[in-house]
């Protein structure tokens, strides 16, 4: 009997060989092909909970529309297909977009190496979060393929009244070499009416092309707010968990304290909680965390005055964050169609669910005033949101129509 060695290895599993090599295969085409097949086979998603199905169905169809329509190209056609990609990225319905979503009918200018172009395609403005989708060209295909971490987008220059948190590619048209770049910003100055955005394309951390500036209007948004009364418990256990794997954990005191989540708000871009806790001073006194000041003094590196006590503050914040995550582990968002979602399972760009949000004033947390925020990857549709369930109690939101000015 003769047997093929290659066939004998068909059931062998291996992952130790560091296999590398060049191929003539196009990563961009492979990705497009894969997304196209997914949309054709399943409509964009596998069976999921009803709400998630709606969220990804829209995205899948819009991605398919983008891919199929990439065959015919005019300046407006490219903007139109990139607009589809922007909607797909933010999970916005084509037929009934949310009020916080705005699209711009700017004609796309195809850029050249000496005259790169940037055009605003769409924005999503919600509370202190502003997302801008900008079409930029020319962008080399290898940069747009997304297969190499050597290529990345970054802000160029500062943004007055605003922090550019993150830039990433949300789409690419290879025929016109146009990228759709998503710029995620936090508005520090809430009175801003517009923001000027410029960006760099970087290779190996060096800027190689600059695009913009593009004027991004800040548009109206709304939030639904309801009072709450959720007790959050903080003990030595949460403090130790916040300490984590750092060496030489000091001996903290056994303590128990309580905080309260007083208010819950939801807007298209995030869910925000307002909470009161004991002050930093009160917490330090019961937890024995003042021992951390001795650790700071023992450090080889002298601390500047403004950083003194940083470890105590860090453990104060960290332990309450652990408490909040634990208390809200089963928090659910409930929709008018009768479905609901576990908030920790809603896709988010961040690791962790409830992250510290901007304070109402500097060092408010030391006074026992905290804010936490959950940010989804795609926008909430406030017209569909009915209530939120936290710590076993359901809090209904007011109807969006009730908040008309």
């Amino acid at each position, binding site marked *: 009997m003769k047997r093929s060695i290659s066939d004998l290895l068909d059931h062998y599993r291996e992952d130790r060989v560091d296999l590398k090599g060049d191929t003539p295969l196009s*990563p961009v085409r492979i990705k497009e092909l894969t997304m196209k097949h997914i949309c054709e086979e399943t409509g964009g998603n596998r069976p999921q909970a009803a709400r998630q199905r709606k969220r990804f169905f829209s995205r899948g169809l819009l991605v398919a529309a983008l891919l199929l329509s990439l065959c015919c190209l005019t300046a407006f056609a490219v903007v139109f297909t990139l607009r589809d990609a922007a909607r797909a990225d933010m999970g916005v319905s084509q037929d009934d977009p949310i009020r916080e979503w705005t699209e711009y009918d700017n004609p796309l200018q195809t850029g050249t190496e000496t005259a790169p172009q940037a055009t605003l395609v769409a924005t999503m403005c919600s509370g202190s979060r502003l997302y801008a989708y900008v079409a930029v060209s020319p962008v080399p295909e290898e940069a747009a393929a997304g297969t190499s971490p050597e290529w990345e987008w970054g802000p160029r220059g500062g943004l007055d009244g605003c922090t550019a948190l993150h830039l990433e590619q949300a789409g690419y048209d290879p025929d016109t070499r146009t990228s759709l770049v998503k710029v995620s910003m936090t508005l520090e100055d809430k009175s801003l009416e517009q923001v000027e955005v410029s960006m760099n394309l970087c290779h190996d951390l060096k800027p190689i092309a600059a695009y913009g500036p593009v004027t991004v209007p800040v548009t109206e948004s709304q939030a639904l707010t309801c009072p709450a009364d959720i007790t959050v418990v903080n003990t030595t256990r949460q403090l130790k968990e916040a300490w984590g794997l750092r060496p030489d954990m000091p001996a903290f005191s056994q303590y128990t304290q309580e905080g309260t989540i007083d208010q819950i708000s939801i807007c298209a871009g995030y869910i925000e909680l307002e909470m009161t806790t004991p002050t930093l001073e009160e917490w330090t006194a019961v937890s024995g965390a003042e021992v951390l000041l001795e650790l700071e003094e023992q450090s080889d590196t002298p601390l500047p005055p403004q950083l003194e006590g940083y470890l105590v503050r860090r453990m104060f914040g960290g332990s309450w964050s652990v408490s909040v995550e634990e208390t809200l582990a089963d928090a659910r968002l409930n929709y008018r169609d009768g479905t609901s979602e576990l908030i920790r399972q809603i896709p988010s760009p961040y690791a962790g669910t409830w992250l510290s949000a901007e304070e109402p004033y500097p060092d408010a947390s030391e006074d026992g005033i905290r804010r936490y925020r959950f940010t989804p990857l795609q926008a909430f549709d406030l017209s569909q949101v009915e209530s939120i369930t936290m710590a076993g109690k359901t809090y209904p939101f007011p109807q969006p129509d009730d908040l008309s000015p």
Partner: protein
Amino acid sequence: MRDAILLEKLKRGDPKGLELLMHAYLPYVSVIVWNILRGSMAPEDAEEVVSDVFLAAWNQAADLECGHIKSWLGAVARNKAKNKLRQRGRSLPLEEDLLDLPGLSDPITRLEQAEEQELVRRAVDALPEDEREIFLRHYYYTQPVKEISLTMSLNESTVKSKLRRGRMKLKEALMKGGALE
């Protein structure tokens, strides 16, 4: 950590998980498929096969386990590329792929097949590290001898000699295992 994150998204049906999977493993899968199909098919055909591999990952996300994603993708990529080759009536570009196993018959029952797979696994895992790598690069990943010699900084005759030793040990393991039946 990266695999855990992308797997969680993939299993939830989040397209971002598939994006992350492709970002991490597309070059690896592309090399496997192209090693098998080059010389027989155009790059566009190979791109279809690579796409099919990730489509399989999307549809069978429930089968993926953390820590075994790469090996799953590698196995699926090999099988799909080899099937494509067979459909076109072509054979693998391998040296001395056939093992002569006199006195043994093809495993028919599932039990016999499972036993043979176990014998193969043990024989390959028992090879010294450098021999195993050369053996797998050629017979698992279909990498040509010349490329292996350049990648591992060995001369071709050394690579061929180690392949020969690997074949002998695999044959010995299968003959011994077959004789015990």
